[in-house]
Every structure is written in structure tokens, then in C-alpha cells.
């Protein structure tokens, strides 16, 4: 048997990052969830190593990194075809310090179901040397909204115990910015170009998180990378529940959204501040619960900002800020307000 030496982590000398992710057979226990930044820096290492091929300024690796800081032990990651898959696993190497599998575009949830069933079978026959092995899926919006929804719906219906994290960059960014079911109304993409005939995409975004709520699975949540404590807590809750869990994370894309490289965090913050992308979680017991910044906005409506604040940083909505398109902007603002009011009526912890 060939003994392979693993590379050294370049930042902290003498302590390789992947070592925290090697669990010897017989390992028992649970990694703690740490939200103190200093303890986090001292005790935790992300599962995604530096030097991957994702664009500068992409928010998807931030989501992966924060999620991996909330893992509770041995974890297997399943990835649908998408930016993360093509950029982090360039044959024969991988940026992942943990076991990782890619199958096809449409069946990431089905692959996760199979892995979860295998783990269950090994546990039943006493061949699993761990207490628990978690399965986490990272899939983009193309692999979830459009192509992968039947596999996801089937896995949710069968009740497999896995966590599905959707990083939503709102178009097929990997293949060249084509529209998807997750693209918002009036957004520019290469297949819904802005011109004299149409003002960008003509349809609204599909409410994927509400579709998953309709499956009545144990945990559904929305989050963004800017609200990092919120993201880590939700990932941990999603892993700990017994059954399928779904997390919808907004992931700004500087190539496709046409914004400056350094604005990914600012834009996700503004998406929550303008109520374009509210933060909530849903459990069958408690129903819809607003969290973090959205709860503050529900308690103090003065904090809510107009939708222009979110649109002005992005080139894909540039046409909406022209004077002749003011009616389109008004329509979008009314839609966002109506969705926010609807959520406030459903949320159990919002002030009535």
C-alpha cells in the first residue's frame, strides 16, 4: 500500500489544516459549534483549502467555508454539477479536506439518499466505526430549481437524513449566465437580454424554500453569507435534525450580477435590508420564524430600505434605474413589499 503524504497548510506553520478533518475509526463525540470569532480562529479550520479556481469575489466558497465550520464530525459532501464542482476538484486533486462525491447534474439529492441508506445499513450491522456520519449536499440554483427538483422532492418525501444547501447565484453562471428558475424578474441574463422588446427576464423567481416547506420536512431556512453566525447556526440545526433539511443561501456572483469584486458581502447584506431576501427558518412545530436582521426589521419597520439600494450596485438591473423604466421599478417594489407582508403574516414571532 502506498503511503501518500499530504501537503502542508501554508498559513499556520507546523499544523496542517486537513488534520482536523481526519477522524480515526472509533472516533466518538461531536465538534462544538463556536460563534466567538477568536475561538473560531484558534480551534477551527475550514474544509475547503486555499487555491481553488472559483472567481475572485465569489460568495459560494464563503458559504461552503462557514458551513464547514459548523459540521459536527465525520461528514460526506455531495456536490451537484455547478461552479463549486468544476472549480474545486480539478483531476486528480481536490480542494476538499473531507470525502466528496459528484455524480450528475440532476441527482445530487438521490446520491445523498443512497449514501445515507448505506450508512444506515453499515450501522445496523455494526460495521460503522463512528457514532454518526453526516451527509451534506451543495448544489447551485440550476441543479436545484430546474434540473434537480424531482430528485430533491423524492428524497424529501422518502425522509432521508441529509442537509441540502442551495447556493443561489440566480442563473447558470458556470456555463455563461443563462436564465434559470431562480433568476428574479427584470434581471439581465444572456438568454433574457435587455432591449427594446423585453426588459430582462419576464417571470418571477420560483419560491423554492416555500416548496420545501410544503413537503413538511423537519427544517427549512434561508440565509446569506453576510450573516455568518446565522448561517452557521442554521447549518448546525439542519445537520442535527433527524430527517431532510434544506437551506437556501443567497450567493452574489460578481461575473453574472455585474458588480464589483469586493461587494459580495455588502450586496447580500443589502438584499436582507431591503427585504428582497428575508431571513427565516421553518420547523413543523413552530412554523415560520424570522431571524437575525429580518427580525429587527419586523420589529422596527424604519430599518427597511427601498429596493433601489439593492439594485444600484448591480449591472444586471442597470436599466431599471433609468427614468423611462420607473414603472418597472415600482412594480418590483410592490412585489417585494407584498412578499414581505405575506411573510410577516405567516411568521409566528413577528409583532402583530
Amino acid at each position, binding site marked *: 500500500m502506498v503511503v501518500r503524504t*499530504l501537503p502542508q497548510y*501554508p498559513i499556520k506553520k507546523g499544523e496542517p489544516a486537513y488534520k482536523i478533518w481526519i477522524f480515526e475509526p472509533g472516533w466518538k463525540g461531536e465538534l462544538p459549534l463556536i460563534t466567538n470569532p477568536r475561538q473560531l480562529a484558534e480551534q477551527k479550520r475550514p474544509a475547503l*483549502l*486555499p*487555491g*481553488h*479556481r472559483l472567481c*475572485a469575489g465569489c460568495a459560494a*466558497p464563503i458559504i461552503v467555508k462557514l458551513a464547514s465550520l459548523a459540521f459536527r464530525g465525520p461528514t460526506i459532501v455531495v456536490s451537484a454539477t455547478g461552479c463549486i464542482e468544476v472549480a474545486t476538484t480539478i483531476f486528480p486533486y481536490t480542494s476538499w479536506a473531507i470525502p466528496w462525491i459528484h455524480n450528475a447534474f440532476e441527482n445530487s439529492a438521490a446520491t445523498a439518499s443512497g449514501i445515507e441508506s448505506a450508512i444506515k445499513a453499515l450501522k445496523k450491522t455494526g460495521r460503522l466505526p463512528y457514532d454518526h456520519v453526516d451527509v451534506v449536499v451543495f448544489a447551485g440554483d440550476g441543479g436545484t430549481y430546474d434540473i434537480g427538483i424531482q430528485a430533491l422532492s423524492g428524497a424529501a418525501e422518502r425522509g432521508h437524513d441529509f442537509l441540502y444547501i442551495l447556493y443561489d447565484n440566480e442563473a447558470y453562471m458556470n456555463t455563461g449566465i443563462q436564465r434559470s428558475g431562480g433568476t428574479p424578474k427584470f434581471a439581465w441574463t444572456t438568454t433574457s437580454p435587455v432591449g427594446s422588446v423585453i426588459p430582462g427576464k419576464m417571470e418571477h423567481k420560483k419560491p423554492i424554500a416555500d416548496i420545501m416547506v410544503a413537503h413538511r420536512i423537519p427544517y427549512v431556512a434561508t440565509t446569506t453569507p453576510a450573516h*455568518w453566525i446565522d448561517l452557521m447556526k442554521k447549518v448546525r440545526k439542519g445537520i442535527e435534525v433527524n430527517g431532510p433539511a434544506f437551506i437556501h443561501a443567497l450567493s452574489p456572483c460578481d461575473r453574472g450580477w455585474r458588480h464589483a469584486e469586493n461587494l459580495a458581502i455588502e450586496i447580500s447584506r443589502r438584499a436582507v435590508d431591503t427585504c428582497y431576501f428575508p431571513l427565516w427558518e421553518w420547523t413543523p412545530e413552530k412554523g415560520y420564524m424570522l431571524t437575525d436582521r429580518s427580525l429587527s426589521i419586523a420589529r422596527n419597520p424604519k430599518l427597511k430600505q427601498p429596493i433601489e439600494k439593492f439594485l444600484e450596485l448591480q449591472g444586471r438591473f442597470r436599466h431599471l434605474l433609468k427614468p423611462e423604466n420607473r414603472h418597472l421599478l415600482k412594480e418590483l417594489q410592490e412585489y417585494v413589499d407584498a412578499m414581505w407582508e405575506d411573510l410577516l403574516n405567516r411568521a409566528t414571532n413577528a409583532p402583530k
Partner: protein
Amino acid sequence: MGKDKLVIEKPLYDRLPIAKPMVGVAGKTGLWRVEKPVVNNSKCTRCFLCEIYCPVNVIRVEPETGVEIDYDYCKGCGICADVCPVNAIEMKPE
């Protein structure tokens, strides 16, 4: 085959393609950089936000010495400078 058993001399997993975790699968991505983050450690308050938000995980904050950036892999996106609450990180042309 009959009763003969298939004898595998080498372990089977040695013949399968097994991916290895590696830092820098895309080479030294620091070559992509057009602007370089430069840290003023006397201004830094050790809030760790740059380390938490760095997409490439190249920033490390040492409580005593300050911020260390691995320029071999830093792509120069500028998120660290954008999230820094005291503007201790400045983007300078390479």
C-alpha cells in the same frame, strides 16, 4: 473460474482514481491578482472579520502579531478591505 477465487495482489483502492486533498489545485492563484491587500497592523482591532469572510481562506489573524495574508493564493478580490470596520486593509495596485 469454477472454484478458484479471484486473487487481488494489490489492494483494489490503489487502482481506482483517488483524489488527494491539495492546497492550490488551480496553481498559484495569486497570479490572478491586480490589486494587493496591504494591512496596517497598528490600526487592526483583531475583530477577525477578514478571516471569516475571506473566500480563499488565506487570511490568518494572530492575536499578538496581527493579520497575515498568504499572497501565493490571494486572488485580490478586496472583500477583506470592504468588510474591515476600521479600514486597516488597503487595496494597492500590484
